[in-house]
């Protein structure tokens, strides 16, 4: 099911009920999430879209036409295919989406039932969306190198990619929000279509349950911080901006099943592309270990970049309250972006500490360290230094936007700070990067 389709679900279906006072988790009969996955080792162009023995075949012309017809506001559409190691740079990336499809979407809510997914390939959307008058463009170039020194940093460089470049018509008055909605809907429609054609037995099936297992184990909760500052800086829960619903508890399986969509396009390296929510190493590892090494207490979605200290404190307190309600013994707080969000993360850690819940923060550093700190933040995991320069590399080809934001050609071989490379300093814990002191 894609976010663009009419859905009978409201986001309230996605929220876990608070854990009963006896600490039992999820004693309701909730069907598990069965994630059936097909591994894609290659992407090629062909006559009809299909998956055949690990190869994703793309009917490029057919899909380009279908996208333009269904979503006229996105203008002309170009699809390109890239493999890991190709000497290619994609410039102007908005989002990365994992191709997914729910064959029983009409009766299975997100986070439960069967979902089909392609591994080893992501859909990358590219579109230059002008901000509305009076608003600033999201900051920073957004590039993804499939070769060269930066390729080892982004989780998406090691996977095949279907790049969809949208070129909205000039001179047409469409608000940034409306165009962004169309771009996201078009991208998710395509992500759905690529998997809907899959037949046969999946390569793997992961079954995610959250029922209480016998025995007592430590309970680990997660707080995922996100931004929701308006068009081009938003995160969506089933199409609703998070500013309208967070802080809130959410079934982590719903996140893996695509409930969260990224629409926040600042600083590519620190971005949480949709695919990082869908493929979250943190959530999948906790789900896989649930009932064995520990219990996964649950997930809270919290907001960063609130406008004033009072709002920040209130949001942090509410997030900590929700963590306490799920009887977590410890919480992992995944930060979002940088700068004043360091304060948001520290406030959540403080609020949890006030409830005697210790916290681990996953946080990216600037060249000068963190911009805020708390005595309670005794355990911080580094996502890397966002300002570090990656040696320059000149690609053989550019897909997406031809020019960088400063108007210079995107095939430049100059070094970029790592924060320009998509998800390279992700604070959701998916990368193997950290900063060390020398």
């Amino acid at each position, binding site marked *: 099911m894609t976010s663009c389709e009419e859905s009978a679900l409201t986001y309230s279906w996605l929220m876990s009920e608070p854990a009963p006072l006896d600490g039992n988790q999820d004693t309701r009969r909730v069907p598990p999430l069965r994630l059936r996955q097909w591994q894609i080792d290659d992407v090629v162009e062909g006559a009809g879209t299909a998956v055949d023995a690990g190869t994703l075949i793309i009917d490029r012309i057919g899909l380009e036409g279908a996208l333009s017809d269904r979503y006229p506001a996105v203008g002309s559409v170009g699809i390109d295919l890239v493999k890991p190691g190709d000497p290619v740079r994609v410039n102007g990336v908005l989002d990365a989406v994992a191709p997914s499809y729910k064959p029983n979407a009409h009766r299975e809510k997100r986070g439960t039932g069967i979902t089909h997914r392609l591994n080893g390939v992501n859909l990358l959307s590219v579109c230059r969306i002008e901000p509305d008058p*009076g*608003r*600033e463009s999201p*900051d920073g170039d957004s590039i993804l190198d499939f070769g060269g020194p930066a390729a080892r*940093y982004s989780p998406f460089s090691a996977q095949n990619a279907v790049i969809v470049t949208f070129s909205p018509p000039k001179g047409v008055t469409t608000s940034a929000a409306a165009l962004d909605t169309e771009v996201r809907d078009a991208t998710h429609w395509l992500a759905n279509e690529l998997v809907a054609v899959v037949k046969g037995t999946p390569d793997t099936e992961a079954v995610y349950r959250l029922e209480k297992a016998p025995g007592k184990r*430590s309970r*680990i909760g997660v707080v995922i911080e996100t931004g929701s*500052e*308006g068009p081009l800086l938003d995160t969506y829960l089933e199409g609703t901006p998070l500013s309208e619903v967070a802080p809130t508890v959410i079934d982590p399986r719903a996140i893996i099943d695509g409930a969260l969509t990224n629409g926040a396009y600042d600083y590519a390296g620190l971005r949480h592309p949709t695919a990082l929510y869908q493929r*979250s*190493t*943190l959530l999948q*590892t906790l789900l896989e*270990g649930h009932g064995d*090494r*520990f219990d996964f207490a649950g997930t809270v979605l919290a907001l960063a970049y609130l*406008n004033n200290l009072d709002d920040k404190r209130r949001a942090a307190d509410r997030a900590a309250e929700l963590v306490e309600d799920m009887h977590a*013994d*410890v*919480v*992992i707080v995944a930060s979002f972006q*940088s*700068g*004043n969000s360091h304060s948001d993360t520290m406030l959540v850690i403080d609020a949890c500490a006030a409830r005697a819940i*210790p*916290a*681990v923060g*996953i*946080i990216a*550093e*600037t*060249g*000068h*360290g*963190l*911009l*805020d*700190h708390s005595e309670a933040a*005794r*355990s*911080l*995991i*580094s996502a*890397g*230094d966002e300002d*570090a*320069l990656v040696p320059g590399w000149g690609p053989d080809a550019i897909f997406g936007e031809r020019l960088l934001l400063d108007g210079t050609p995107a095939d430049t071989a100059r070094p970029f700070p790592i924060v320009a490379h998509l998800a390279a300093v*992700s*604070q*959701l*814990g*998916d*990368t*193997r*990067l*950290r*900063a*060390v*002191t*020398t």
Partner: protein
Amino acid sequence: MKVVHYLNHFFAGRGGEASARIPPERIDGAIGPGAGLGLDVDYTLMCGDDYFAENEDSAIEALLGYLAEELPDVLVCGPAFAAGRYGYACARLGRAAAMADIPAVAGMAPDNPGVLASEGWVYIMPTGSTVVAMDPALKKLTQLATVLGSGEQVGPPEQAGYLTLQRRVNQLVAQTGAERAIAAALSLIGGGAVTEIEPSHIDFIAADPIADVSKATIALVTESGCVPRGNPDGFRTHDARSWHRYPIGNLERLDSEGFEPIHAGYDGRFAADNPNRIVPLDAARSMERQGDVGHIHDELFTTTGNNTSVAMAVNFGQEIAEALLSAGVAAAVFTAT
């Protein structure tokens, strides 16, 4: 041993503040303090402090270009003493040179923002705060530059006399951040704290209270990027490289025709509609009329605090504080976003 020396516009003898926007230049041999280094300086690089601050990327590119034409064994920068912009330029050029495998040493006062800005890439020799300390500063620079330039092993800070270097570099490791976070979480439950980031040192300084606010001159200072409409001085919406002062002495309040926000860190529409939301001149005037404060200083001090480096912000703070003290200002209302 091939030695290159970096100086700012003033120490290169090009003049005072009026010359601060001179772009990078290369001069043969040693000039100014370079002659006192006791080293055979091959050539000197120079850049105006304001030019460097406002065009850091292109200034560094130009200066590195000179260095690449004739690679030195060591780059000596300064001494900058307490001069914040000069120290910042020494640090950033030194950092860029060190990243290009050219050893770099700089001299500056320990509280110069350049120390932070070097990010651990430059050997910083501590000096006094003023030019009175020139001779001992040059001696220190010469000693360490000689060791660096000849390829010898540099001793530990306590022996060689430089400030301790703390550099954070990125490294790929075996485990993902998620795996390390889960392990750290389980360790916390067991009573042990695993951390990969040590706390930052943040100074909290309490100023003395004002004896009588009703007689004091109060200044309005802001990082909201509030500037005259049209942004005459070309403020950046983020990563500010400058601060400015604008006359407000004849104004009862700020209006949207006269002022606008230049800042990408918040939704500026409400501030654009009524700039008093970010610089409360209307409220300040009311207090002035009622005698709650003595006088509102007739200049607004403004910069943009969005992704501005800590080192640069420290620099701005020091310069603004000096300007406020010179103007007899007793306290400032600082609006932050």
